[in-house]
């Protein structure tokens, strides 16, 4: 066909090329698809409670039972200290915070595999999928957080009106409680960042998928979820502190209960690590996303 010279210099809305700048993260595209993000979150929520008898009650059942088991095993049998925080409160704080992070990570880490079919048939910014996972989990976390608040206020009242019943345990919320939204956001982007890296790598090296579930269990024990950092021996403390979740969980628990202390170094380290891993995850994900359809 003859190319009209007047149109050869035309401005294009879209150019599809083999290679793209590594740093072009198509974030504007993601913004254009924000409606899809909310619809996916809604889909996850609706389809979750439609398929179950107990519906959203499941959101409660899991943390309640985990807390009971932890209280019995680690508090009762192993007698691991909880920095004078009531056991139930201590374990529940750790559990719901850890679960949010772990859910974000594990669900994100299979995003390519789970959505291979839809990704192979239609274009939308792939990042929408992992983002929807993070927000879906935030809904779940919100529900569990309500449960936590009930337990929290129960012990807070008890501490103020009947401290004798607590056997010396304390509940002393402080100003660090205000960091709570920041902590949740940081956990989200840390889980998302790591998940993105893993899902990108699993498209090539499948074995990683098996490592994730197992690795998350181990990682929980390398994070002060069932014990306070102060209880860990000096020898292992640097390793535990190298885990970016440590600073976040410790701060979360300290803000609400006053148990343990605020480790500024750990916290700052966590913030930096979260952003670095998140950015790294975005870059790798964007690189793999473009032609992963050809390799699955």
């Amino acid at each position, binding site marked *: 066909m003859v*190319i009209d010279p007047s149109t050869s210099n035309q*401005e294009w809305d*879209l150019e*599809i090329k083999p290679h793209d700048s590594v740093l072009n993260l198509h974030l504007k595209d993601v913004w254009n698809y924000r409606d899809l993000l909310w*619809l996916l979150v809604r889909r996850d929520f609706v389809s979750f409670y*439609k398929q179950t008898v107990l519906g959203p009650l499941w959101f409660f059942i899991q943390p309640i039972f985990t807390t009971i088991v932890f209280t019995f095993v680690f508090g009762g049998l192993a007698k691991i200290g909880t920095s004078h925080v009531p056991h139930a409160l201590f374990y529940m704080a750790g559990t719901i915070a850890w679960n949010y992070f772990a859910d974000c990570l594990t669900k994100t880490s299979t995003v390519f595999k789970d959505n291979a079919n839809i990704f*192979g048939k239609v*274009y939308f910014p792939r990042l929408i999928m992992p983002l929807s996972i993070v927000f879906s989990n935030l809904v779940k976390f919100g529900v569990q957080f309500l449960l936590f608040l009930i337990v929290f206020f129960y012990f807070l009242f008890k501490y103020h009106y009947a401290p004798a019943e607590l056997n010396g345990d304390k509940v002393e919320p402080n100003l660090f409680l205000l960091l709570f939204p920041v902590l949740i956001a940081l956990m989200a982007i840390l889980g998302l960042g790591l998940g993105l890296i893993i899902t990108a790598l699993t498209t090539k090296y499948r074995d990683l998928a098996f490592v994730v579930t197992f690795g998350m269990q181990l990682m929980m024990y390398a994070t002060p979820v069932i014990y306070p950092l102060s209880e860990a021996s000096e020898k292992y403390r640097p390793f535990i502190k190298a885990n970016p979740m440590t600073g976040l969980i410790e701060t979360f628990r300290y803000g609400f209960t006053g148990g343990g202390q605020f480790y500024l170094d750990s916290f700052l380290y966590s913030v930096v690590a979260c952003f670095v891993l998140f950015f790294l995850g975005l870059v790798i994900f964007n690189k793999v996303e473009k032609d992963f359809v*050809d390799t699955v």
Partner: protein
Amino acid sequence: MGDIAIKVENLSKAYQLGDFGTGTLSRDIERKWALLRGKEDPFLTVGETNDRATAGTSDIVWSLKDINFDIQKGDAVGVIGRNGAGKSTLLKVLSRVTVPTRGSVKIMGRVASLLEVGTGFHPELTGRENIFLNGAILGMRKHEIKKHFDAIVDFAGVERYIDTPVKRYSSGMYVRLAFAVAAHLESEILIVDEVLAVGDAEFQKKCLGKMGEVSKGEGRTVLFVSHNMAAISNLCSKSILLKHGQLQTLDFTHTVIDKYIRTGENSDGQVNKDDIIVKQHSTKAGFHALRLLSPAKGITADFGINEDVIVEIEYDVYHDGAIVQPSIHLLDTLDTVIFATFSAPSASSTVDQFYKVPLQKGRYKSTCVIPGNYLNDKNYKINAFLVPEGDMANMAIAENVLAFTVIETGNMRKEYTGEWWGVVRPKLAWQTEQVL
């Protein structure tokens, strides 16, 4: 000349066959290193085309190779080619599902692509919820979907079930709803893969009508892949012909369809002696070769619906004085015999000089012509027989010895585009008169 909506330049897409990636960390590193130094990827061999029939020398196959074309705004363009010609890959690249290996595509306007009907439908959600979800997946904003919501429901005809989970829908309703969402997208460019293969004839007609409306009425650009030449010739003024991942032609649709049939690459229109699987041998005669020919392009297994199908049987007669009668059966793919024919004067429209003539030892060739405008657009098979006179038990039989495809060209479908029933489709005499 109007604006260009899609400009494709030197577009190539390579796929790696077999295992790749895993286990070849050394190769991964080698490739990375070469790319880092700005060199060509050492594992992309240049120049190999994608032909499934011949084994390539490397693991890389070029699904698309150096494709160049422009599509004008408002054009409806058909994409034609055999399985594996690169049609779907082209659509995948254009709809950004995958990236090209080389070259570029420039696009003016928003693209909505429909490579599959109902992508992202969730069975637990209601029809209403799925309309919004699917619309958003296809790139619509919520307010746009709201604007078209009534039109979508109306087109799909599912008003009564709109608040029922789609898992309770019949498959027809499901497909109708899914197509309706896509057809009402507010995009300047609509890319549609073979999605109309699903659904009944009435629905297909409705979809085609909607697509015609989209391209002609609303002035949007449509790119349409189909094996249904009738649909393409009705809908698209221009078409692209792909072969082995390369662009053959971009021209007016009828020219392209004509060329598509003429370049029948399935050259299995002939079987020779050693390849003929003979079910029963005869002591009097044996097959030498069997061929299918079209008057225009010689030996082929693909025939346009209006083309004659010439069946040639070449056979050796073993003894002087034998009387041998060749015969064929035409079968459909379900092995139903459509007809049996031989050269008896009362059973053929021509006179065969050698009918019932004692033959000398030697090689003979008998030809039978199945006229054009007679078969339907289906696959057919041929059984061949050599029957010695008065000795039926001693005949040579070759079953399913030839197979061929009759391809719709749109020649007989100017008025009707739905599915055409029947194993044959003869042109018959029709008259209507007023009797009262």
